């Protein structure tokens, strides 16, 4: 079972999902290689969770092709799911059971032995830093703890592919960094990660390659660095003139930069040389209330591709 690096573990061709007449995923193509960490980005309703569910073989596609580890999900659902760890966007914990029982029972669904699970559950409680809360009912855990429990649950069956739908939403910064670290370690062990997120820093940190989706379609694909290079300039200048005035100065600023983006609270100017541009702005007699020069990030790529900011 030691596979070549280039082995494709998930392959989607023209993958489509319709709910009645509504097209949630609109003919997308992508491949995920073994050991890779693959990201799905996109605004709310883009179709990320729907795609994740189809890969997890808990939702049937309505068109196109999809294979996971070379298997067809429509006919080999349970077999595929035995290879996968699934962390759904909604935690979906078993509220009638205690924290440790949530892990134990889920492992039993895979047919794992009690002996094996006894040890595994301890290991995972520690991983999720929930050892002290082991006997709490799932409902009595805080939101972040529930999230961590759901992530631990996804690891019970020692998956080869881990599907994480917004894994760090609701986690405090510390827990987030700890989780990143754990995910890195899983990746080092050869686990393939498929991640959706609304945090660009997370995507930059975790994903080798990602796709940006909007309205069920893929807008762009590549490594974080390549996407930044392709879709954004090197630097960005952010200026604020005060809420009502941003629109007013936009036309003047447009002439100075390669491209601008007017947001409700600020204006972003894309350029190769940030400081120079800022000087030009001031020379032109415009005096922003605040200004900032920074490097271009995935956030800018996202904004360009979807016309929306990420954090709502």
């Amino acid at each position, binding site marked *: *079972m*030691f*596979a070549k690096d280039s082995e494709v573990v998930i392959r989607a061709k023209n993958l489509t999902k319709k*709910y009645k007449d509504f097209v949630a995923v609109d003919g997308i193509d992508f491949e995920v290689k073994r050991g890779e960490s693959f990201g799905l980005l996109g605004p709310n309703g883009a179709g990320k969770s729907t795609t994740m569910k189809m890969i*997890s073989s*808990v*939702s*049937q596609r309505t068109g196109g092709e999809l294979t996971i580890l070379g298997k067809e999900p*429509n*006919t*080999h*659902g*349970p*077999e595929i*799911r*035995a*290879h996968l*760890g*699934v962390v*759904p966007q*909604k935690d*979906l*914990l*078993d*509220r*009638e*059971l205690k924290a440790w*029982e949530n892990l134990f*029972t*889920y492992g*039993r*669904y*895979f*047919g*794992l*032995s009690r002996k*094996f699970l006894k040890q595994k559950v301890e*290991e*995972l409680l520690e*991983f999720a830093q929930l050892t002290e809360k082991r006997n709490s009912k799932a409902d009595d855990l805080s939101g972040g703890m529930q999230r961590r429990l759901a992530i631990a649950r996804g*690891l019970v*069956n*020692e*998956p*080869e592919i881990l599907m994480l739908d917004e894994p760090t939403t609701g986690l405090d910064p510390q827990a987030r960094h700890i989780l990143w670290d*754990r995910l890195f*370690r*899983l990746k080092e*062990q*050869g*686990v393939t990660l498929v991640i959706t997120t609304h945090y660009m820093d997370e995507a930059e940190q975790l994903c080798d390659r990602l796709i940006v989706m909007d309205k069920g379609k893929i807008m762009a694909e590549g490594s974080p660095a390549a996407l930044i290079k392709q879709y954004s300039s090197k630097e960005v200048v952010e200026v604020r003139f005060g809420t009502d005035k941003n629109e007013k100065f936009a036309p003047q600023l447009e002439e100075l930069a390669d491209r601008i983006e007017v947001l409700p609270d600020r204006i972003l100017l894309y350029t190769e040389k940030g400081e120079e541009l800022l000087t030009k702005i001031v020379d032109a007699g415009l005096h922003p209330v605040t200004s900032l020069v920074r490097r271009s990030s995935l956030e800018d790529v996202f904004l360009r591709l979807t016309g929306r900011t990420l954090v709502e």
Partner: protein
Amino acid sequence: MITQLVVSQAVAIQERRSARPGSSIYSGRASMLLERGFRAFKSSNWMVVLSGFVEPVLYLLAFGFGIGQLIGNLEDGLGRPVSYAAFIAPALLATSAMNGAVYDSTWNVFFKMHFGKIYQVMLSSSLGPMDVALGEIGWALLRGVAYSLGFMAIVTPLGLVTNAWGLLAIPAASLIAFGFASIGMAITSYLKSFQQMNWVTFFMLPMFLFSGTFFPVSVYPQWIQMIVQALPLWQGVELIRSLMLGIVDWSLLGHVAYFLVMIAGGLWFTTVRLKALFMR
């Protein structure tokens, strides 16, 4: 190590099943749901569970021994006299089996489907929809069996089981519980609101009162008899009454067949529905 690249146990377990027919919907682990059931049950409300059991016992006391005094003896199918209590006890046993099975497979399943969300979780493991269907039906069936065992433990010392065939009443009650659990869950999986659920409860009461429970169906005109005889409770009452009164012939297999069809049908529709609801 959290995970490794050799084949995990979960995968090995699943691959052993992959050649079997139906492996896309059934993984042979319905019993894992029973395990979960016991874990969750430890903390559940015992009063609710007990009250369902007590109901038929109260009917037996009030009608069998109270009103039975006024009625005197009836005749069984062979013209022998039977006390009124001995006449209704088998019917109430069938009712116990039905009640236990139906409580779990309707209301409890309804809550799990719409609020507990546990079926989504199960179906994201390597269980298939038929594991979930069979497991939940099995859990409901257990409650039916528990109720009937309890009921038997009460009626036997009272001298209401008079012959050896009566022992078969227990497997018969289990069969009845299985049938009701199966059909109960299938119907529930199609219902969307509390109102619709109330209709189920509403339908249960007349079925309980008029399925030959407290008096023979021969009092009805022919066409009503035919309707009643098509109902599952009448089928169950007839089966158990025949066994407990020792009137045994091949026709009882007809009742058994009725329940087998009910079990298979319920299981199938539940599986289809689980798939449609949680794997869409």
